[in-house]
């Protein structure tokens, strides 16, 4: 017998076709799994966006309602010693107030405890006008006191209290006014010289990078554990590992398909936020924050987001391959998420973006900073390119690591 059994002719029923790349086969399978499973697709793509939209909208409506509640209710204000100089001003502040000039005592104040009464009691000192006119703040004597009794648990009562306080404070300021700051003499006169665009850019650059990165990460977190740790837990990965497929094909196939799914889930969450944000901020305020970005900005945005998703999917895949099961994967990913959140908060505490190009080679942080630069109209293509190249390099490294892990019996079959 020969020492090494040599390949022999045998009786093969067919000739195997030339070995094709299996990466696409794996990607197709992952897609078939993802898009074919309605509940998985719903929970990871439709639900995040929908939930965010519903919750934010409800919160916005709730806040709006709270503000509106009681704003049209008529409030009876009993005024004791109404000063002649103030009467015209006070009676014009709100049409839903009926003023009655009458004195009141402790029993009336006690009645205010009932929060269902739309009542405010306002007491001026007798001869208010003359005392105020002769009062010298430099004398050190206590100033006159105006008493306003109200019930803060009653929205209408509380509203009128605020209105009266504001009106009286304004009246007081007006009496002692010595100078104004930035009083515009015409509508064209602007003291803040920032353009509306720059103001918008400032707001978006603080807000959106973190939001985008967080949404993408939560998308990855929702999908990756079940695709790798889940396959390990269910014993289906071993079935793949006994096929002639190369380990790097499996790793690349997993990372690419997970990136696509994470992107979808991230887009869904982002749409949820984008669509509900106006409701959240409250249409009443009528704030329009300009969102003006050029084609180059959008292109950079897309490239950064794609590379960020790729690197997130590969990082989470590695953690999930190390984990024993899906639950364990979740535990392992959580500390990692805190790091991402921390990196996401950085732009809020700094002015401008880092100029040192090396910073853009730090994974995750680089994506946040380049996104901040894009939204802040501070786009530098050098930074974007360093970010993209390093992210792709890290993802490549991760795919290589993942294929090594698929080959490691300790990681794949260790109990």
């Amino acid at each position, binding site marked *: *017998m020969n020492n090494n*059994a040599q390949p022999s002719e045998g009786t*093969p029923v067919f000739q195997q076709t030339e070995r094709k790349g*299996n990466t696409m086969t794996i990607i197709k399978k992952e897609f078939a799994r993802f898009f074919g499973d309605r509940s998985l697709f719903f929970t990871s793509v439709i639900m995040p966006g929908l939930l965010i939209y519903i919750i934010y909208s409800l919160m916005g409506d709730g806040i709006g309602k709270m503000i509106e509640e009681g704003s049209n209710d008529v409030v009876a204000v009993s005024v004791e010693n109404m000063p002649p100089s103030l009467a015209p001003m006070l009676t014009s502040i709100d049409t839903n107030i009926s003023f009655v000039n009458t004195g009141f005592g402790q029993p009336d104040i006690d009645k205010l405890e009932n929060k269902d009464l739309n009542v405010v009691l306002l007491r001026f000192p007798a001869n208010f006008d003359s005392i105020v006119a002769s009062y010298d703040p430099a004398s050190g004597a206590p100033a006159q006191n105006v008493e306003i009794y109200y019930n803060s648990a009653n929205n209408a009562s509380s509203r009128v209290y605020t209105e009266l306080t504001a009106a009286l404070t304004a009246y007081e300021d007006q009496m002692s006014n010595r100078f104004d700051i930035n009083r515009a003499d015409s509508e064209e006169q602007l003291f803040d010289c920032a353009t509306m665009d720059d103001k918008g850019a400032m707001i978006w650059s603080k807000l959106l990078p973190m939001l985008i990165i967080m949404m993408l990460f939560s998308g990855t977190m929702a999908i990756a554990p079940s695709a790798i740790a889940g396959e390990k837990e269910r014993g289906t990965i071993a079935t*793949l590992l006994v*096929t002639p497929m190369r380990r790097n094909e499996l790793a690349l196939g997993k990372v690419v398909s997970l990136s696509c799914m994470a992107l979808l889930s991230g887009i869904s969450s982002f749409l949820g936020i984008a669509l509900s944000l106006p409701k959240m901020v409250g249409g009443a305020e009528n704030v329009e924050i300009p969102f003006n970005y050029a084609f180059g900005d959008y292109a950079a945005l897309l490239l950064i987001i794609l590379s960020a998703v790729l690197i997130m999917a590969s990082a989470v895949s590695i953690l999930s391959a190390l984990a024993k099961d899906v639950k364990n994967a979740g535990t392992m990913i959580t500390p990692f998420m805190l790091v991402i959140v921390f990196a996401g908060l950085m732009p809020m505490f700094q002015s401008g973006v880092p100029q040192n190009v090396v910073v853009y080679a730090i994974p995750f942080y680089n994506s946040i900073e380049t996104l901040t630069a894009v939204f802040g109209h501070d786009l530098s293509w050098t930074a974007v390119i360093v970010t993209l190249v390093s992210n792709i390099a890290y993802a490549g490294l991760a795919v290589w690591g993942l294929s090594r892990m698929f080959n490691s*019996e300790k990681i794949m079959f260790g109990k």
Partner: protein
Amino acid sequence: MEEILRVEGLSKTFTLSRKQQKIEHTTNKKKVAVDSLSFTANRGEIFGLLGPNGAGKTTTLRMLSTLIHPDSGDAWLDGCSVISDPEGVRAKIGFLTSELKLEDFFTPNYLFSFFSQLHSVPEEVMKQRKEQMFARFGIDKFAEVKVANLSTGMKQKLSLVISLVHDPEIIIFDEPTNGLDVLTARTVTDYLQELRGLGKTIILSTHIFSLVERLCDRVGIIIDGKLCVCGSLSEVCDGMTIEDRFFEIYKQQKGGEE
């Protein structure tokens, strides 16, 4: 007779965790699962590895299928080394054990196509084989039913079919009838004989004596990771039943220790 499998000095040692040490009643951190195992198998025969639980049968078969790496030694399957050409080995073999599961979400139809692609089976051949194999095992009626909804027996038959999508020359089967109901077990053993008739080589592990007697042409008895005896069934039995012969060898092997 043409040699198709050669195993030379295959060894595997596992590191035991504290918990495993307690279960095994040992303070040894290392456990030798397979101890310089050598044997050969010929084309067109059913070779059985017979041994008690924990003897190292499964570990041996997992090394042959390249799922785990030997610490030393090598094995050649139809000319491909498990060390230097694991992908080549995997293309030649069909490996089946109860540990290998199929994704619940997919249908037999999809899985057959998917694994055929991973094995580079041409489309036309794939269709033909699918039809033939599904009909042979009665899977055709359930071709579009998700694996999750198949009966246990049907799942096992499907696993067998999937492991053979590429019509491998060598079939490695860990405990082929374990956990199967009598009907499925019979279907499987009949099919193994049918495959032998087609010139395929089957390497199986078992602890069931009757299975060895009924199926195997050659047998190796493995105890504590060591191959104690290996040869044709009649050589190994030496006029006794395989069961009596096994216990004789077992006593010789363990006698010194007790």
